[in-house]
């Protein structure tokens, strides 16, 4: 089974801080994704990457950036955290083939105060 891990389950940061969320997958998946999950809104795609050093904006990229220097690692960066970025952040990965389902990490609940 694919294992997707995220660096923290819970994180509390102050407004204006730079925040790094790390995601690692161990099954050589080409695609990696970052979502945020908010009640009543479901999951919304922030960024995704289909190869090392490649990135594509999702539906809500504002205020976020990403980095993928190695195939197994995909980082989400909040350059200057704001209170409206308080949310659950989920990382996922999948093979490159069309229709392959995504495997998710456990999530990081970020609170910005």
């Amino acid at each position: 089974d694919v294992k997707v891990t995220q660096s923290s389950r819970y994180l509390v940061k102050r407004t204006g801080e730079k925040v790094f969320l790390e995601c690692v997958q161990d099954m050589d998946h080409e695609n990696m994704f970052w979502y945020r999950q908010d009640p009543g809104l479901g999951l919304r795609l922030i960024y995704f990457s289909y190869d090392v050093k490649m990135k594509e904006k999702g539906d809500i990229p504002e205020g976020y950036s990403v980095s993928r220097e190695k195939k197994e690692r995909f980082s989400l960066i909040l350059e200057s955290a704001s209170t409206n970025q308080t949310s659950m952040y989920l990382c996922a990965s999948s093979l490159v083939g069309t229709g392959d389902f995504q495997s998710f990490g456990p999530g990081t609940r970020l609170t910005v105060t």
Partner: protein
Amino acid sequence: AQTVTQSQPEMSVQEAETVTLSCTYDTSENNYYLFWYKQPPSRQMILVIRQEAYKQQNATENRFSVNFQKAAKSFSLKISDSQLGDTAMYFCAFMPYLYNQGGKLIFGQGTELSVKP
């Protein structure tokens, strides 16, 4: 734009009974995939079932089955013989067929299902 709608924010069912979760979607594409994901309380999101749009036969996985109505753009999930462990948030998701989309998923708002003893 493609959208996925789950119109039931919360549902409950008695243990051992059957429940159906609704999902509708909007797309102009002919080829795509549909998924149901389950997120138990404080636990990881896992895949429940997957349907390819070009297949007329409804997918089944043990107690979970779907009713896929392509013309109506409807994709409901039926859970038979509900168990306490089925208590979770359920998400319906749509994936375009396009290879260069990198397997992007579009999610619905979620339905919180409670199974009562």
